[in-house]
């Protein structure tokens, strides 16, 4: 993902963003010495729940309210394991009891429907209005319905699930896979960049192939990709050769991969080269920032939210921080880990700003595991810093599992993938 801003624009953005923060403290509508500084967090996923927890952990005196419509949040990470039969939905459901009871966060099962940046208020679906001194918006993604002709929300809910927000969508795709006949064809259709979880569709292909090889070995998975290349490509292709020879076919965008239209009734997808019928069709449509970010005027023409990379404060509205998939974070991918890392940086920055201190330069990390099958894991790591060009990966660090990794190392990575999940959800919701 490129930053797409000039060096000069970046510098302006950086300074104006922090100046906005300074105004928020010293010249804004709120009294600087209020009894309790109030932070409202919209969204209880990897970004928002991390921010809420770490705000309270770093400064227990803050009044933190977390607004999340779902009582149980199903994580996208490991939802592919559910599709492969290696985890259950229950295993990937996270709840808010600890954040509420142990950390004293005011968790509201509700949705934000409007933000008034000038007044510093958030209106909820229930009708309640919350006032904030700082707002964190972590709404994840929304889909661009209609970007693929014929693909609507209704099509996703009935015939062709996206399964790219875990929950009922994951269950629908799982149900279809279980019902499919041996010898069936599964189509997975990922979008162009940028999108949530770049290795996600390919881990999905791997774990669906795992299930099919065990139970329905005459079946096939075809990936019709809008892109010319994909995350961890060489590692995935090697893994597919080793574990599922002949079962997974990948087509690049310019060689007939790009899906332009679907017909849910006949389970057909159309590409520039022709059409393909699937027994199970998983369309992962193009994405943009979650709806509330768009409604609140936090997005730019790209559909994502520009932020100051020190504090993740919006460059559109001072006092509002945007983290996770919805924000534009330079070289960082849109991943749950990245969202959590950004949530912690935003939390630490907000604590410093309330204290009238300058936030520390950010340090950000991403670590994503993908499972090719049981005992076969691969990973990508990234360490990021702020430069004059924005958030960049630190040279000569991070990177992928070596392509020549031996079976022991791949097995170890698969174990660490489980360890990763156990700790990241504990660190955020536990």
């Amino acid at each position, binding site marked *: 993902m490129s930053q797409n801003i000039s*060096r000069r624009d970046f*510098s302006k953005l*950086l*300074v104006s963003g*922090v*100046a906005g*923060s*300074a105004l928020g403290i*010293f010249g804004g509508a709120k009294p600087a010495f209020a009894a309790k500084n109030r932070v409202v967090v919209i969204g209880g996923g990897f970004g928002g729940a991390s921010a809420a927890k770490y705000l309270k*952990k*770093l400064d227990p005196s803050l009044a933190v309210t977390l607004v999340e419509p779902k009582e149980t949040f199903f994580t996208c990470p490991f939802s592919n394991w559910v599709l492969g039969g290696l985890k259950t939905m229950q295993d990937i459901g996270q709840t808010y009891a600890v954040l509420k009871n142990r950390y004293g966060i005011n968790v509201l099962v509700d949705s934000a429907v409007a933000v008034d940046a000038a007044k510093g208020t958030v209106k909820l679906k229930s009708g309640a209005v919350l006032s904030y001194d700082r707002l964190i918006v972590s709404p994840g993604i929304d889909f661009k319905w209609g970007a693929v002709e014929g693909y609507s929300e209704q099509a996703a809910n009935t015939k062709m699930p996206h399964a790219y927000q875990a929950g009922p969508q994951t269950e629908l795709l799982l149900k279809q896979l279980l019902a499919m006949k041996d010898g069936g064809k599964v189509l997975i259709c990922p979008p162009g960049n940028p999108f949530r979880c770049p290795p996600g569709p390919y881990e999905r292909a791997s774990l669906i192939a795992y299930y099919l090889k065990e139970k329905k070995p005459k079946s096939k998975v075809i990936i019709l990709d809008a892109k010319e290349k994909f995350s961890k490509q060489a590692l995935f292709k090697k893994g597919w050769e080793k574990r599922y020879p002949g079962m997974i076919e990948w087509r690049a965008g310019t060689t007939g991969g790009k899906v332009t239209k679907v017909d849910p009734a006949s389970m057909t997808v159309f590409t520039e080269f022709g059409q393909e019928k699937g027994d199970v069709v998983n369309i992962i449509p193009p994405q943009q920032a979650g709806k509330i970010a768009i409604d609140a005027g936090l997005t730019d023409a790209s559909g994502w939210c520009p932020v100051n990379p020190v504090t993740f404060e919006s460059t559109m509205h001072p006092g509002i921080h945007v983290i996770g998939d919805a924000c534009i974070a330079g070289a960082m991918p849109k991943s749950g*880990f990245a969202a*959590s*890392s950004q949530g*912690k*940086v935003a939390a*630490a920055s907000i*604590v*410093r*700003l309330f204290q*009238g*201190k*300058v*936030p*520390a*330069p*950010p*340090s*950000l*990390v991403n*670590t994503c595991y993908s499972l090719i099958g049981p005992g076969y894991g691969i*990973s990508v*790591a*990234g*360490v990021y810093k*702020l*430069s*004059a*060009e*924005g958030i960049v990966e*630190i040279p*000569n*660090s*991070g990177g992928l*599992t070596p392509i020549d990794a031996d079976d022991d*190392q791949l097995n*170890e*990575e698969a*174990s*660490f993938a*489980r*360890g*990763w*999940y*156990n*700790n*990241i959800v*504990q*660190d955020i919701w*536990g």
Partner: protein
Amino acid sequence: MTACLISSATLTTGSDLLAAQKAATSSKPAAGGSSARGQILSLSCSSCHGTDGKSVGIIPSFYGKSPQYLEAALKDFKSGARYSTVMGRHAKGYTDDEIRMIADYFGTVWQKNK
């Protein structure tokens, strides 16, 4: 007030801002007693290693370890002297000074929980 410095028009580039921030934050204690920089470098480690380094799964826990132990371990991962699957890739992202700040943070954070 340090924050006023940031709103000053004299800061015109990202590099200037970074320099100002480093000067303002490198040695000042944050809420936890460690430096603000040490804190921000350390917070992401807990995603894999558990909150405050207390792991609940197969990934090694380092809760309760000394700063000296942690610094030596991180430097060995960075140089490759110690085998790892992913830790070396992470450790290479930090300077020796940053490694010391991370070691100080996690080497002392558990003492405050006692």
